[in-house]
């Protein structure tokens, strides 16, 4: 296939397309097979709470290892270098452990079917509506962003117009999520994880060979526009945009590590839903902790290829990288978001190229499927069943779930075009998350451990937290307050958290709390110890299945990684 006009075109041949086609056959096959296990709405929305921990654990990180992570993090790797690893080590692992050890007993033990449902039982309807609707809207927006990225990759690869690949990809994702529900999405996430690692690991190794090993990469990055500070994760000034080291570390630990990541990992139903699909309390607790093991090492196959691209790909290195870092267009016309694709083009022979393309497309589609499968659950259970059509037979809600999945897909196609207006997709998605997620964690953690907190405080805290995140966003966008890099998103998340706590406490002081008997299972001090207990027999026996022990192991490795890099 010789196309001279587009220099980003990957030189894919028949073998690559065959490998790609095999993948799609399996993806649709999984959807078809999963369908036979769907007989109730619980099967469709929560896999009948029947999956083993390793499956839900891999799905847990795989749902997040979508387009956003793979392309966005390698773009960040090319631009900022090793500090990008904070998104994993500071910005994910601690929160995942916290979710498994501390919060999961309430989510799984209270038998709620979604995170917003927890909200409704703890704080009542106003907080539930705020949470449910903002979550649903965010999922459709993010599904659209996934779709757009997928389409731009197919555009580079096959030269198809964006709109054609948007529609084809949406149709594939829709057919397996509407057929097999959450099980199909989760099984495909596991398969996607295998393929993406199978593609990125060889790419990283070959890339390192190409630049002369680790030492070669160190020398080349140090001599490049970013300088040697791109090789150590701390203090990460380029990433945060703070020139002061102390502020930068503070921003990372408090902004990214605490507020932003805890908000995302512990209250985002896309993630929590995977753990809710686990077969037992123990398996649910282990879900995020098992996921943390691969999560610690993902930076090595995502960020390092980005860094290699920044020094080895002719369109990105030298003056191109310098121009892009300064916020200008590169003379070559490439952007950091192309980093991974350009590296694949330069290094991989046909065959491996097909695997890599399958892995990338798989990660886009799995990301979108995760958005859709959590959206349809929240919409059906939390909006349709709770407010619009109560007390219908179960089969009715199963049908609604399938129809809503189709409607959401149509909206996501529309959103794909919104996503195309932002240069750096990470920035775009972080802004969304900081609007919705940062205040949520504040409300949840207060609500789980402070029985006095009132329903009114629940929703007023959420609204004012979200409003302050938007306020910071407007300040930074309009240039009143300049924070380059990702600093604006971190500050926004921090502001949302603090405002939420302050407002919630203040409102609680002047309003009436819920009666204690309605809070059993939802608040720490009112939940009998037995109902927070996990099983320790049969499939859940053994020290290596103990969530706390596993979490300790992860923590030690993460600290070691932070010290080494």
């Amino acid at each position, binding site marked *: 296939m010789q196309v001279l006009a587009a220099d980003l075109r990957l030189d894919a041949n028949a073998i690559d397309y065959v490998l790609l086609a095999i993948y799609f056959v399996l993806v649709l096959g999984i959807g078809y097979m999963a369908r036979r296990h769907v007989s109730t709405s619980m099967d469709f929305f929560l896999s009948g709470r029947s999956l083993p921990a390793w499956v839900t654990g891999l799905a847990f990180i795989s749902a997040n290892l979508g387009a956003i992570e793979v392309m966005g993090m390698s773009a960040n790797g090319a631009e900022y270098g090793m500090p990008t690893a904070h998104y994993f080590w500071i910005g994910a692992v601690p929160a995942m452990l916290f979710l498994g050890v501390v919060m999961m007993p309430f989510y799984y033990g209270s038998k709620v079917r979604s995170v917003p449902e927890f909200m409704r039982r703890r704080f009542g309807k106003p907080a539930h509506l705020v949470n449910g609707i903002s979550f649903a809207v965010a999922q459709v927006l993010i599904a659209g962003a996934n779709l757009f990225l997928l389409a731009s990759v197919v555009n580079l690869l096959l030269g198809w117009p964006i709109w054609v690949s948007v529609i084809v990809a949406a149709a594939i994702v829709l057919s397996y999520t509407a057929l097999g529900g959450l099980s199909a999405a989760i*099984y495909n996430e596991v398969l996607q994880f295998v393929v993406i690692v199978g593609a990125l690991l060889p790419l990283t190794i070959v890339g390192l060979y190409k630049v002369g090993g680790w030492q070669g990469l160190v020398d080349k990055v140090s001599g490049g526009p970013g300088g040697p500070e791109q090789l150590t994760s701390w203090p990460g000034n380029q990433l945060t945009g703070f020139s002061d080291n102390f502020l930068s570390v503070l921003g990372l630990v408090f902004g990214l590590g605490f507020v932003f990541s805890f908000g995302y990992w512990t209250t985002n139903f896309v993630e929590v839903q995977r753990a809710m699909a686990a077969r037992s309390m123990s398996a649910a607790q282990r879900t995020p902790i098992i996921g943390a093991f691969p999560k610690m090492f993902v930076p090595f196959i995502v960020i390092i290829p980005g860094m290699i691209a920044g020094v080895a790909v002719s369109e990105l290195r030298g003056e191109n990288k310098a121009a892009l870092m300064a916020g200008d267009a590169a003379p070559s016309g490439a952007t950091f978001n192309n980093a991974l694709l350009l590296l694949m083009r330069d290094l991989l022979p046909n065959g491996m190229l097909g695997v890599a393309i399958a892995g990338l497309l798989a990660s886009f589609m799995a990301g979108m499927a995760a958005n859709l499968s959590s959206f349809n659950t929240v919409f059906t259970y939390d909006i349709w069943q709770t407010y619009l059509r109560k007390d219908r037979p179960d089969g009715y809600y199963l049908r609604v779930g399938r129809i809503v999945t189709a409607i959401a897909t149509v909206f996501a196609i529309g959103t794909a075009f919104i996503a195309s207006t932002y240069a750096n997709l990470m920035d775009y998605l972080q802004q969304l998350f900081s609007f919705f997620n940062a205040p949520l964690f504040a409300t949840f953690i207060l609500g789980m451990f402070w029985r006095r907190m009132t329903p009114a405080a629940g929703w007023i805290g959420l609204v004012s937290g979200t409003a302050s995140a938007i306020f910071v966003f407007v300040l930074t966008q309009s240039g009143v307050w300049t924070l380059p890099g990702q600093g604006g998103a971190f500050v926004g998340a921090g502001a949302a958290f603090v405002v939420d706590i302050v407002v919630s406490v203040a409102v609680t002081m002047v309003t009436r709390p819920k009666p204690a008997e309605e809070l059993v299972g939802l608040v720490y001090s009112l939940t009998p110890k037995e109902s927070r207990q996990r099983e320790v027999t049969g499939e859940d026996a053994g020290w290596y299945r103990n969530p706390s022990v596993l979490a300790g192991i992860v923590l030690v490795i993460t600290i070691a990684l932070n010290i080494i890099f």
Partner: protein
Amino acid sequence: MSTETRTSAFDIRLIIALLLGIYGLVLTVLGLFFVTDEDNAKSAGVNVNLWTGLGMLVFGVLMIAWALWRPAAPKPRPTGRGSSSPAP
């Protein structure tokens, strides 16, 4: 294990093994017989297809071994949990 060890057709480990088996086979064959000097020059002298293919085959076999060693447990019907949808 009991007689009803259902290594059901729908064990995700077997699907992973199937995919990796096919990919591994194709890549290994490409790496053994169809590798060009141009390919090798591209990837700094490493025969990417061959090594990745072999790695995938090994991993696929491991997946099958795991699935045989610990067959998927029959899906437990929820014990009341979940199937009853709590009234809002």
